[in-house]
């Protein structure tokens, strides 16, 4: 079952590369949160119940609902529905995404380890590359934020891979989630325009 969830997670990453509407991005982030909750439930059987409940609650509340809710609010207030027209076209991004998947498979196999399931490694690396691709190729701040959330999910999958042995690593990883919360709240608080692509006041 857990393998199906992981493969489904990979499908969402492919979809990220081809989608251009921000609302799709938000839905995919929510879906990834739900999938991570499921993966945590199946994977962390050896962790004590209280810790498992905490981790699942965090993924469900924070990743699956709170984040998409906040992002929907940002999109609603900015009125921007699609990624910036100067962003890399979806087709090329898809090609890069496939390249990233192949690289992830090769790298994960090179990094075979008795403590870690290789499929986790593949998807975590793929998620990492996809997040970085979105940050690098897109122009809008909101796209960068979504790229960062994908990258953060990659960190969570990595920590899940070790979670049964070292639950402390997941708890520390959750700190990163809280940090993202502050990031997004700061985004609201500082009233930076999410549709801006002109953060160029500071330059030489």
């Amino acid at each position, binding site marked *: 079952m857990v393998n199906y969830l992981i493969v489904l997670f990979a499908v969402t990453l492919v979809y990220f590369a081809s989608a251009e509407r921000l609302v799709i991005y938000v839905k995919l982030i929510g879906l990834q949160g739900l999938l991570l909750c499921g993966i945590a439930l199946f994977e962390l059987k050896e962790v004590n119940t209280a810790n498992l409940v905490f981790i699942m609650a965090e993924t469900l509340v924070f990743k699956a609902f709170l984040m998409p809710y906040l992002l929907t609010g940002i999109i609603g207030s900015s009125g921007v529905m699609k990624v910036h027209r100067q962003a890399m076209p979806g087709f090329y991004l898809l090609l890069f995404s496939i390249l990233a998947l192949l690289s992830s498979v090769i790298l994960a196999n*090179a*990094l075979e*380890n*008795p*403590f*870690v399931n290789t499929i986790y490694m593949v998807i975590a690396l793929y998620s*990492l590359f996809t997040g970085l691709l979105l*940050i690098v190729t897109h122009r809008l*701040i909101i796209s*960068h*934020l979504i790229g*960062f959330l994908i*990258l*953060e999910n*990659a*960190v969570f999958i*990595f*920590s899940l*891979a*070790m979670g049964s*042995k*070292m*639950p*402390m*690593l997941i708890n*520390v*990883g959750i*700190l*990163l989630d809280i*940090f*993202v919360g*502050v*990031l997004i709240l*700061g*985004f609201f608080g*500082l009233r*930076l325009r999410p549709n801006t692509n002109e*953060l160029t*006041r*500071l330059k*030489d």
Partner: protein
Amino acid sequence: MSISVIILRNKTLTKFITGSFALLHILFTVYCWLNLNRTELTYFTFNSPGVLLLSVLSLLLIPTVYHGFIYASGDDTRKFNTYHSALIALITFMTGAYLANGMTVLWIFVEATTLAVAVLIYHDRTESALEATWKYVFVCSTGIALAYLGILFLGFIYGREDAATLSFASLSNIISQANPLYLKVAFVFVVIGFSTKMGLFPMHTVTIDAHSVAPPPISALISTTLMNVGFLAIFRVYVLFSSSSVLPFMNSVLILSGVLSLLIAAGYMLKAKHLKRMLAYSSLENMGLVAIAIGVGGAGYYAAFLLLVLHSLSKSSLFYQMGQLSRVLHTFQLDDCGKYMKLYPAGALVLITGMVCILAIPPSGLFITEFMIFKGLVFNGQWFVLISAIVLLCFIVYAMSTRIMHIVFSGPRKGSGPEIPDRLNPVETLSQFVFLGIVVVMCFYQPPFLVDLINQSIAILPV
């Protein structure tokens, strides 16, 4: 103390609490010196490199607090208290990062510094401050996530239930049996991630923007003690892996990162029009040299630590002086600055002395460190790195010296300068002269307690 400053809402009390905090911090550093290598509260050890960099922080604390009082004196009580609350929090987090004895604890404190610094960068509430804060938080968050991936790779190597804290001591026992590819991946992630804090290539941009808008006393901390935090995080992993077969790989990564940092610093310093950005690029240059020094190995290890200490003293002096310069000339733009020697001779002397010190021109103590690095490069036969570094440093010396000399002696390129320049008391420059004096003295004499502590910090590394 940080919370009490926010709650009390009284400027005088805030000054008293912040001053007391600075004194307590100095006493704590003395306590650390007296109890070297002792572990407290399970997660903190008063280890040599940590205590050395903690001492630098303590040394900078009084002038930073003093210049902070002056900088924020015109602010309303809320803004004044927020500034000092964030400052106390930042110093506490940096102290925690210096003394952490495990990777996860170190990471948590480094993550926490980002939040405190963000508040301080946004202090002036301008559009530029907003942009710099956003960039700082976003890039640091990405860097921190990547650094955490590096830590997770350490976890993969260990894979045991008793490794909850990933302490350096527990990891050092199993590194020699680990898969070298894991070590390489972990090290690359750690270098990229913590380079946001160290201000090193490839994530150097974040600190450059932060410097241009942060209050000068905060720039002094970001450019010195916070960069030292980033260095320490990378150095801890370097020390951990140094007994394995990946040592040459780590050295290559650091030297590459260092040379590219020098290249970027040289390129941008030649076109810098903003004084604080120019100093920020100078920090990038010095961190590049630190990375090269570690990559060189041998005497380079000693040079790296001495360079960090002396760079902290010189650069903080220059940033404190930038605060005074902006009060006299009301600008940081190079084209609008000039005749500083006439307007504020004490400040102009600090600028000239600081320039000599930071550019490693004898009798600056930094000259000794650069000499040791170049000697190491010659000894290793790394001629390409040596020639690249020397050529790039020539550009940097030219760019910085022409700009500083212009400010001190020439008239402004645009306009005629401020109509009624503010007059400042020369006593305000006292701490800057003391720090620069220490840097000069270090060229001829390095006190045994400092030499011993640096040698203890690098004792475990291969010769």
